[in-house]
C-alpha cells in the first residue's frame, strides 16, 4: 500500500486570472478508492483532465502509474480509464457497437474485442440491452455502459467524474457496489469525484476535500473528523435518561462533575432528560457504566461520530472565504 499510483505536485491551472487549481499536492495509493469531494466549480474536473493529459497544467507535475501525464499522455491514457460526467455514446450505434469501437481504439483485435465486450456487458448487467441503440438507454444504463467502456482497456486506474449524477437511489447503490467490487477484485485504483457526501462516505477509503482549487484536508472519515474537530470534540455521546425529580437533579449534578473529572471528556450538557457529552476519545462504555451505577434509568445511548456532512458544512458554509465559490 506504500506505492503511490497517482502523484500530483504543486499542480496549478489558471484560466487568465482565475485560478482553477491552486498548488495541489495529492498522492493516491495503489488499489484504494479515493473520493474527491467538493462543491461544483471547485476544480475537480480540471484536476482530472490534467491527470489524463487532456489539459496542460500551468505549473506543477502530474504522474500517473509513474508516467508524466503532460509528457506522455498516450501512455497514461492506455492505463487509465476515464468516465466523464454525463458520458455520451454514439446514439446511432448499439451499446455493444459503442464498446467495440472503444476496444478497437485500444488496439484490440476484433476477436479479442468481442470477447472482452461481451464479458463486460454481462458484468455490468447489460447483456440483454447490448443490441439496443445507445440513444434509447436510460440514464442509469448509460452510466453502467460507461463503466464497461472504461473497463474495456483493462485499466490500472479508473477515474469517475460525478458518476452517480442523475441516477435514482437504487441505481446509485448498485453502481457504487459494482465499483467497490471491481476495485477489490481486480485491484483497480478508483478516483471518484463527487459532491454527494453520503455516496463518497459509503465507498471511499480516503477522501480529499477540495474547495476553490485547494485540497483542504485528506484522509479517511475518522481521520478527517479528528483533524478538523480537534479543537472541539470528535465524539459526542447522547444519552436519554429517565428522571424528573428534584432528587434526580441533584444526583445529576454529582454525575456531571464526576464525568467532567474524567480524562477525555470535554463537556457535558444537561437538558432535562437528555445528556450530551463531548469527548476526545470514545468514552461510551465508561459513561454508560457511571450512569447506571448512579442509579439512572438509561433509555438510550448513542455515539455520534462526525460525518462528512459536518465536515462539509464546516468548510463550505463556515468559512466566508469559501462560501461564495460553491
Amino acid at each position: 500500500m506504500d506505492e503511490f499510483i497517482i502523484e500530483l505536485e504543486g499542480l496549478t491551472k489558471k484560466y487568465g486570472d482565475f485560478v482553477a487549481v491552486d498548488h495541489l499536492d495529492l498522492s493516491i495509493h495503489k488499489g484504494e478508492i479515493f473520493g474527491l469531494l467538493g462543491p461544483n466549480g471547485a476544480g475537480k474536473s480540471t484536476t482530472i483532465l490534467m491527470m489524463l493529459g487532456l489539459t496542460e497544467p500551468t505549473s506543477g507535475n502530474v504522474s500517473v502509474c509513474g508516467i508524466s501525464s503532460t509528457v506522455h499522455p498516450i501512455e497514461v491514457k492506455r492505463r487509465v480509464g476515464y468516465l466523464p460526467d454525463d458520458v455520451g455514446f454514439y446514439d446511432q450505434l448499439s451499446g455493444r457497437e459503442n464498446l467495440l469501437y472503444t476496444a478497437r481504439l485500444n488496439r484490440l483485435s476484433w476477436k479479442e474485442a468481442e470477447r472482452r465486450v461481451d464479458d463486460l456487458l454481462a458484468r455490468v448487467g447489460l447483456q440483454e440491452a447490448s443490441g439496443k441503440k445507445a440513444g434509447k438507454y436510460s440514464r442509469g444504463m448509460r452510466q453502467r455502459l460507461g463503466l464497461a467502456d472504461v473497463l474495456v482497456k483493462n485499466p490500472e486506474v479508473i477515474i469517475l467524474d460525478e458518476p452517480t449524477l442523475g441516477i435514482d437511489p437504487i441505481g446509485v447503490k448498485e453502481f457504487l457496489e459494482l465499483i467497490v467490487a471491481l476495485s477489490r477484485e481486480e485491484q483497480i485504483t478508483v478516483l471518484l469525484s463527487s459532491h454527494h457526501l453520503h455516496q463518497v462516505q459509503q465507498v471511499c477509503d480516503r477522501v480529499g476535500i477540495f474547495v476553490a482549487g485547494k485540497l483542504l484536508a485528506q484522509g479517511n472519515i475518522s481521520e478527517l473528523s479528528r483533524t478538523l474537530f480537534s479543537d472541539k470534540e470528535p465524539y459526542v455521546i447522547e444519552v436519554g435518561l429517565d428522571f424528573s425529580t428534584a432528587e434526580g437533579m441533584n444526583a445529576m449534578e454529582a454525575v456531571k462533575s464526576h464525568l467532567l473529572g474524567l480524562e477525555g471528556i470535554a463537556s457535558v450538557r444537561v437538558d432535562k432528560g437528555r445528556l450530551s457529552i463531548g469527548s476526545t476519545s470514545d468514552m461510551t462504555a465508561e459513561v454508560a457504566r457511571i450512569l447506571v451505577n448512579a442509579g439512572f434509568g438509561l433509555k438510550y445511548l448513542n455515539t455520534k461520530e462526525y460525518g462528512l456532512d459536518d465536515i462539509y458544512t464546516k468548510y463550505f458554509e463556515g468559512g466566508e472565504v469559501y462560501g461564495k465559490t460553491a
Partner: protein
Amino acid sequence: MEKLHNAVRRLREIPWIAKVSGTIHRFTQHMEERRALAISHPFWVIVQKEVTDHVRSWRFNILLFLILLTCFGSLYTSITNLVEETRKANDADDPFFFLKLFTLSDGSLPPFHVFIGFLGPLLGIGLGFDAINSEQNSGTLSRIMAQPIHRDYLINAKFTAALLVIGVMFFALGFWVMGFGMFIIGIPPTVEEFFRIICFLLLSVLYVAFWLNLSVFLSIRFRQAATSALTAIAVWLFFTVFYQIIVNLVARAMLPSEAASPQQLIGYQQFILNLMRVVPSQLYTDATTTLLVPSVRSLGPLTMEQAYGAIPSPLPLGQSLLIVWPQLTGLVAATVVCFALSYVSFMRKEIRSR
C-alpha cells in the same frame, strides 16, 4: 428450382470444381480469421467508423440522391443535344466529342460540371458542419479523447473519411456518366479525354474538400451545429451570389473612360478578373471549363499579338493543365489553409465534457 439445385450439386461433385471451391473456401476462411485477429491502427478504426456513419446517414443519402438526380438530368439533356450537334455541325475534326457529355446543354438544365460546382459545396458542408461540435454536444468527444490516441487522429480521420466518401462518390458518378455515354452514343472516349475527365473529377473532389474543411473549421469554432451550418451556407451564398454583385459594382465604378489606352483597359480587365478569382467557385469554374473544353486557350484577355498566328485547334491536356495551374494551386492553398486553421484550433481546444 429443384433442377437448378440438383445441377449445382452435380457440379460440385466434379472433382476439380470441388477442389477449387474447397481452396477458395479455405482461403476466405483463412482471410476472415486473419481479419478477426488483426490489430488495426486506431486512426483507421476512426476512419472506418466515420465512413460507416456517413454512408448510413440520411443526410448523405439525400445529398447523394439529389446529385444523382441532377446528374441524370444533365446527362439526358446533353445526350439529346449531342444528337442535334452531330447532325448540324459537321466539324468531324473535333476530337473531343465525348467531353461534350459533360458540358453540353440546351439551356434548360445546366451541364454536369456546373451542377457539381453548385452542389459540391453543399455536399462538403453537409459532411462537415457538425464534425466536431456534435461529438462535443453528445459527450462522446471527451470519452474518445480519453482513449490512448493522439488528438489529431480524430480530426485527420474525420477529414480522410469524408474525403474518401466524396472521392468514391464522384468517381463512381463520373464513370457512371462515362459508361452511360458510351452505351448510348456508342463512341468510346480517347485516352486524352479519359484523362481530362479524371482530372476534372480530381478537381471536383478538391473543390468539395475545400468546403468540407471550411465547415469542419466552423464546426470546431461554433458549439451549435445549426450555427456552423448556417455560417457555412452564408459563406457559400456570399461567394456564389453577392460577391459577383459587389464585383460588378466595383467594376462599374472603376470603368475607364472611352479614351483610355489599351494598356489601361487590359489592366482594368485583369483587375476585375483577379477580384473574381478570390472566390473558390470561380477558380473551380475556370479550371473545369478549361479542362473540359479543350478549345479554351486563355482565361484572361488575349491581345491580337498573342492570338495572331495561333492555330485554332484544341489544346493538349498538358497545356490545359498549365493554364489552370494557378487555379489549382489556389484551390489547394485555400483547402490547406482551412485545414490548418481547423487543425490548430482543434489542438488548442480544451476538451471538457459537454
